[in-house]
C-alpha cells in the first residue's frame, strides 16, 4: 500500500486495508492523516460546486440576454423593438380595428368602423 503523498494527495487508509497497522503506522497517525484528507476533499468539493454554480449562472444569463435581444421574431412575438428586414417594429397607440358583431354596411361609401373617422352610413337594428 502506498501511503506516501503524491502530488499533494494521498490515499486514505480504509477498513479494507488490513495491513496498515502492521506497516508501522500508528492508529493515531492514520486517523490524523484521514481527517486531513477528508478536510481537503471537502475544500475541493466546495470550490468545485461554487465554480459550477457560477458557470451555470453565467451561461443562463448569457442565453437569457440573447433571447431578449431584438431579432427576427415569429408569429405572436411581443418583444419590444424587434426588427424585420432591418425595420423597427411600429408602435401603435390607438386601435386600428374593432372586434364586434358583424353588422352590415348600407349604402356604403366605405366609411365604417375602425378608427378612420368619416361618414358612417349604416344601421342594421
Amino acid at each position, binding site marked *: 500500500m502506498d501511503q506516501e503523498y503524491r502530488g499533494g494527495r494521498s490515499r486514505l487508509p480504509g477498513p479494507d486495508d488490513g495491513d496498515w497497522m502492521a506497516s508501522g503506522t500508528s492508529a493515531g497517525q492514520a486517523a490524523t492523516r484521514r481527517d486531513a484528507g477528508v478536510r481537503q476533499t471537502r475544500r475541493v468539493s466546495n470550490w468545485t460546486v461554487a465554480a459550477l454554480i457560477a458557470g451555470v449562472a453565467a451561461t443562463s444569463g448569457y442565453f437569457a440576454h440573447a433571447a431578449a435581444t431584438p431579432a427576427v421574431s415569429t*408569429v405572436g412575438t411581443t418583444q419590444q423593438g424587434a426588427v424585420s428586414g432591418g425595420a423597427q*417594429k411600429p408602435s401603435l397607440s390607438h386601435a*386600428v380595428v374593432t*372586434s364586434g*358583431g*358583424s*353588422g352590415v354596411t348600407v349604402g356604403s361609401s366605405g366609411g365604417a368602423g*375602425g*378608427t378612420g373617422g368619416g361618414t358612417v352610413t349604416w344601421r342594421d337594428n
Partner: protein
Amino acid sequence: MSASVLGLTGRPMWQLASSGSAQVAVAERDALGTTARLAVWPAGSLRSAVGAVDRELERLDLAASRFRADSEISRMLEHEGEPVEVSAGLAEAIAVALAAARWTGGLVDPTVGGALIALGYDRDFAQVRMRRWDAGEAPEPAQVPGWQTVRLEGTLLSMPAGVRLDLGATAKGLGADWAARAALAASGAGGVLVSLGGDMTAAGECPQGGWPVLIADDHRQSSRSSSRWSPTQLVRLTGGGLATSSTATRRWLRAGQVVHHIVDPRTGMPAAGPWRTVSVAAATCADANAASTAAVITGQDAPTWLAARGLAARLVAGDGSVLLVGGWPAADNGRLAPTLPGQLGQPRVPAVLDLGGRP
C-alpha cells in the same frame, strides 16, 4: 377616412384609413356583406397585401356565399340529395364547419341554413332588414337536420335533400385566416391583421406590444364610449385569431318580434341566452369564430364551457356587465396571445372526413 382609394377592377374600392403610424397602413372595403379591414406593416406592403386579400375574399365568396346565385353552395342545390364534387376551397370551408360542430358538441351547426331562411334571413342582410312582415308571420321554430347528416369525403360532399348549409359561424373566420396568410406571403416581411366583420387574424410580426384592437358590440364602433353600446375595451393581439359574436347586430323585426342571426340548433330559433356579445381569442380565427358563437348559444354555462377549453374570452351580458374568462386581460392594453398552434378544430381537411353519427 381619407379619400385615397386603391382601385381594383370589378371590386369594391379599398379606402385608406389612419393608423397613427407612418409605418402601418390601414385600408377597408365592403366585403361578404360586411366590412373587410386590413392593417399591414411596413406600409409599403399595402398594395400587394390588398391584392392577396381580394383574391382570398373572392374565393371564399364564390365558394360559400348563400346569397350569390353563382356560388358553389347555391349551385349545389341543383343536385339536392346527390353526392357532389366541390372545390378544394368549399371542401375546406365545410370541413372546418363540421369540425367546429364536432368540438362544440353541435352548438355550432352548419345545417341551420333552413332555420335562418325560415326566420327570414334568406337574402343579403341589407335586404333582410328592409323586409316588412305581416302580423301573422311570427317566427316559428324550424327543424335543424343536424351536422351528422353531412358527409364529406375529400371533396365529395353528400347530404340529404332539404339540408341547407350556412357556414356563417366559421366562414368569416376562415376567410380571415386565409386572407392574413396570403397577405403576409405577398408582403414578404413585417405583419398583417385582417378583419372580416370584426373577426380577425394576425399573422407575421405584430407591432410593439401587439395589434391594438377595440372590443365592442359592433365592429363598426370606433368610439371608446357610447350610451347605445356596452362598455368597450382595448386589447393587444399578438397573433392568432380573435372573433366576436353578438346578438346586438344583424337583428331584424319580424311581425313585431326582434330576431337575430345566431340560431340555436337545439331549438331552431335565435339564441336566447344571457350574453349579448362574446369575444374569444384562439389559435385561428375560424376556431375563435366558432367558440364565440357557441358561447352565445350555450347560454348560462358559457364561462365554464370556454374555460374548459382553455379559451380567453370576454362576455357581455344583456345588462352590459362584463365577465372575463381564461386569462383575458382585465386592463386596457392587455395582451391577448392565443396559444399557437394548438388548433381546436384539427384536422382541417383530412382525406376522408367521416364524422359519423349518420342517421
